[in-house]
């Protein structure tokens, strides 16, 4: 039997799973509800100057890249396997689209973080 290449994707899935289990809920709460509604948070907290400075720092870049990229590697792995659970047998095509999307998003984020400057 052929050795599966799953370990690569499973490792990314696992890293994204841990990161999203730790940070997913709080980030969604803060960026999606608290900041827009303005609860317990002054608007400057997510304002352009502060966010730009964050994205220009190495720490900020690392965090943004890790969150966006790993959340997507995790999600696309799960979505790809769930398609099969739902009776959609799209094989290699589906894998290319799902993982390709995660890869594209990773590269796009890295590029954007570079052009945002330091």
């Amino acid at each position, binding site marked *: 039997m052929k050795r599966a290449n799953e370990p690569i994707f499973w490792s990314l899935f696992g890293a994204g*799973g*841990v990161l*999203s*289990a*730790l*940070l*997913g*809920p*709080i*980030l*969604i*709460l*803060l*960026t*999606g*509800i608290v*900041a*827009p*509604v303005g609860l*317990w*948070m*002054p608007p*400057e*907290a*997510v304002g*352009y100057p*502060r*966010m*730009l400075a964050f*994205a220009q720092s190495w720490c900020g870049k690392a965090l*943004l890249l890790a*969150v*966006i990229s790993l*959340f*997507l590697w*995790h*999600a*696309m*792995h*799960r*979505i790809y*396997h*769930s398609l099969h*659970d739902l*009776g959609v047998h799209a094989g290699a095509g589906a894998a290319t689209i799902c993982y390709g999307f995660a890869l594209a*998003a990773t590269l*796009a*984020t890295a590029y*954007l*973080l570079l*052009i*945002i400057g330091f």
Partner: protein
Amino acid sequence: MSARKPYVRSMDGWWRRNPFFMRYMVREASAVFLAIYAVILLAGVFRLSQGAAAYEAWLAALRNPLAIVFHGIALLVVAYHAYTWWKVMPKTMPMLHVGGRRIPEMALSAVGWAATLAASLVVYVLVRGLS
């Protein structure tokens, strides 16, 4: 000779037949919300790279009631992901013993749940505290 005629049953709708499987599908569906959220963040980074006006437009879009409702649902679903993630995490670990006694899986999961709470607190303090 052989009167055998094995009957193979269909798998259609298999996950609707048992509440255990329904909960599994909800867990798996959390990935969809996580993916959409990551794309929203990616859009934010993109708008950030385009300058202040573009970024403000992104912030304004997040203030749309539909966006807030989406994030409310996403919060619940991703919280369920976090809960189930730590719940099953011990299944990937070898058996651990302390002083001759097996460490129960619940204890390991509890460490995970505590880590989520701690990380959430740290992030909140950092985001709130530095303004």
